[in-house]
């Protein structure tokens, strides 16, 4: 079965798995894992440059920007103002018009602050950013972010880095029914089946980081996530059978 190209803003992707670059033990493992994941989009964070001591290696020396599309995030921002400022700084680095907007409510849950997320979305859309916005799985919040002009809405399956998978499939289903922009599950993925479920539900993609980076073998987990993403997508396109309460025999009924 032939799949369509995934369009996000002006970008076209054939891979539907988006991966982060945080928490890897070494740049070499990260590079291998990115490759094994088949991802075309990788997320990065914006932080102060190290100005003391020896200059360290730069992350982007290990990511081929001709091969990967860079998606800077506003992780670690707890207000609209901070997130907008971070998005502008990221854009100034000159390699991406996209931003993964993340405005967090508190450090313990890392859940999004819905009010400031909406405000920041409105501002960044007006400023010409391609906004992919991290949100909770609340269908109303998701709709409001779409209405504010987000290019993609990215509900969390479960809290960031928790590995709990998709806790409320029904909410994701309602979001998918309600929204017309691409919906990408972002956060909470623990293992391959979580990716598969998101794709089977009809999400256009999945974004994850910790599930790969902190696996015992990140490179083989990256491959597992890739296969799960493709598998879930194919199952979605193929049209699953409805769930039934009672059995239905696969063999013909006995007739002799």
């Amino acid at each position: 079965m032939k799949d369509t190209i995934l369009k996000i803003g002006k970008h076209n992707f054939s891979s539907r798995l988006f991966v982060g670059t945080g928490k890897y033990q070494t740049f070499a493992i990260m590079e291998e894992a990115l490759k094994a994941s088949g991802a075309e989009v990788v997320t990065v964070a914006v932080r102060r440059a190290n100005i003391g001591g020896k200059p360290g290696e730069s992350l982007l020396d290990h990511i081929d920007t001709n091969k990967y599309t860079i998606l800077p995030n506003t992780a670690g921002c707890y207000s609209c103002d901070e997130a907008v400022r971070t998005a502008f700084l990221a854009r100034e680095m000159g390699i991406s018009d996209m931003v993964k907007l993340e405005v967090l409510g508190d450090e313990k849950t890392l859940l999004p602050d819905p009010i400031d997320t909406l405000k920041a979305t409105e501002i960044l859309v007006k400023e010409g950013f391609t906004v992919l916005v991290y949100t909770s799985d609340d269908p109303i919040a998701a709709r409001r972010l779409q209405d504010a002009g987000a290019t993609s809405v990215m509900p969390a399956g479960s809290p960031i880095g928790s590995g709990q998978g998709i806790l409320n499939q029904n909410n994701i289903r309602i979001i998918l029914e309600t929204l017309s922009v691409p919906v990408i599950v972002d956060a909470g993925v623990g293992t391959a089946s979580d990716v598969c479920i998101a794709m089977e539900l009809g999400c256009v993609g999945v974004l994850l980081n910790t599930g790969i980076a902190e696996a015992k073998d990140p490179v083989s987990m990256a491959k597992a996530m890739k296969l799960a993403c493709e598998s879930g997508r194919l199952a979605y396109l193929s049209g699953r059978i409805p769930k039934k309460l009672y059995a239905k025999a696969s063999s013909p009924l006995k007739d002799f």
Partner: protein
Amino acid sequence: MLITVNDEQKECSPGTSIADLLENLGIDKRYVAVERNHKIIPRTQFSEIQLLESDNLEIVTFVGGG
């Protein structure tokens, strides 16, 4: 003269440009963004803009993240 870079006090000579400062600090200028007194400086102006006494600079880069 004294300037502040990422909350640290630094000494630099008059006439130092942002590009000079980045070089002095050993920072790869390909992947940085700079704010001077809370205003983003376009990278095309790194060589032109000269720092002044008490300037407050914020230099950021990309790091691993999800």
